[in-house]
């Protein structure tokens, strides 16, 4: 199926690529947040007060993602079992 052998690091492992990727991401995030401050880019008919908070979606996205990862990983302690858990019982 597959050929297993070691090789030199690929482009995605190159530190320069990672730096550029992070840089582009940060700039994009800042631009998206700044766009929220421009009146022309705001919802003219908001349904909720939160939609008027300019960068609400940015903060909500960041916090929601961080919460899911940081809180969610503890679920493993509750439900995580050995890989062959069911094989031993069936």
């Amino acid at each position, binding site marked *: *199926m*597959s*050929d*297993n*052998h*070691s*090789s030199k690091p*690929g482009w*995605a*492992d190159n530190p320069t690529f990672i730096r550029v990727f*992070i840089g582009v*991401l*940060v700039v*994009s*995030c800042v631009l*998206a*947040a700044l*766009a*929220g401050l421009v009146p*022309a*880019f*705001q*919802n*003219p008919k908001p*349904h*909720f007060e*939160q*939609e008027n908070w300019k*960068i*609400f*979606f*940015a*903060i*909500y*996205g*960041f*916090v*929601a*993602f*961080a919460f*899911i*990862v*940081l*809180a*969610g*990983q503890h*679920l*493993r302690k509750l*439900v*995580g*079992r*050995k*890989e*062959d*858990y*069911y*094989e031993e*019982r*069936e």
Partner: protein
Amino acid sequence: MTALMNALLANPAVVLTVGAFVLLALPRHLASIWMLLVTALSAIKLYTLGIGEYGALNVFGETLTTVRVDPLARIFAVVFHIAIALNIIYAWGQRDRTQNFATLAYPAACLGGVLSGDLITLFFWWEMAAITSVFLVWAPGTRVTYLSGMRYLSIQILSGVLLLAGIVLIFRETGSLSFDFVGLRDESTGAIKLGALVMFLAFGIKSAFPLLHNWVQDSYSKSTITGAIILSIFTTKLAVYSLARAFPGTNELIYIGAVMTLFPIFFALIENDLRKVLCYSINNQVGFMVVAIGFGTINGAAGYAFGNIIFEGLLFMALGAAMFRTGTSKATELGGLYRTMPITMGLCIVGAMSISAFPGTLGFVTKGLIINAAGEAHNLWIWLVLLFASAGVLEHAGIKIPFFTFFAHDSGKRPKEAPPQMLIAMGIAAVLCIGIGVYPDPLYALMPDQAAIADYHPYSAYHMVEQLQLLLWAVLAFAVLVLIKWYPAEVPSTNLDTDWFWRVPGRSLLGWITGASRATWNALWGIFSGRIQAIMERIYVVHGPEGQMSRSWPIGFMALWTAVLLALVLVLSFLA
């Protein structure tokens, strides 16, 4: 007989089903071309039918509408045909007759369900979908998949039995068998209707409502590479269609759907098997559709079902290609495949961006309809839940799938690029993701509620800014967590879910009940057989070789008794 023939000939699902049976006798090397041809014939049949009702059939004094093409059924039927064609191309050259049969017969059953105009026809196709799909679960042919298939079949048949019970109760209440709005509650009293509730549960099992959801992870992830892709598409979408048809605007669905969007996020985060991650993604995605049905936004449900079939299918296909080349779908055993599978990686990222609803993708132009519905309803908490769930979708489907398959740690595997047929199928799906994402008008023209869609403009500046803020900052959170090494590493494990209840304590309980039944039977049989034995012994004593009745009698004794009996008869005759 003529009416039956007309009903069969009018149905595109019958075209596919007949095609599936022909496959069983066809030379294997012609299977793929035949399947594509039959799918094209079915699509042409659907197109030539146009909007309307066909295939009327009188059964026991009731008129059944075996084929109904209306805008709601049409959008599902169209995307089902696209999905069938993509599956055939992806699995081009597959020679396993059982899988090829199920590749046509199972979608045919779901298509038949979608086109049903009455509840009896729906029930027939509902059960056909259960029976034909289980062959895909059993396809790997191991004991694990056999047991999983049996569990899957039990649950699907339970759904069918509940549907039948619901149909009977509804028919008793209303006298109608038409498959239209049912509604969970009585309009005048507000009380829950029993028949509707039973049918609601039947749809809920197939939609994988919370706590009824785990058959998806249990069965789909154990199927073959192509089987899992096919399974991921049809059953849950038939259920979504059925809910949209019978229970639009049901308030309970908003909250059921909201829970469905939330809990899979956390299970997907800790899951090591990436096919199971996508199964949790199905639960989450169907949750969005269920919320839309709850709000009565049928465009949202139908549009997102259309989109999901394409982009979730693309993710399943990309992961399937990696699995085909490496033999595994475990995150701990994958990684670094971008070096030798760059095209698959690129197509996977298109699917990931689409399911995350980045502007310019199919997800963006369909998911917005649902979140907008929560806004229109001024339901703040559901709106917040849907935004939170959107960040969750980005985490498990948008990032985790491509990241752990193609990047993350280097697994050392250097497989070849995916085979051409897989690349073509994934390429078509990716073109649809971006093409409809950029130009959604053809999809919007298929929407069931044209009046509502006319007022919806996905590419408003504020909608794009809001969505980009949400997604880009969520990606930033991912980058930060990876850089500071707070993003959890994958661990080889099995995560318990609701199937634990019937696979461990349920199995023990069943074992105990079986043992107790056996013991009770043995005890009762012991008592019964003891009595029988005693009677037999008594009979043996009397009638056996040594018994009194077995003695030989002298002829004179017999003649005497004959004379006595004849005399007795003579006396009785004289007296009478």
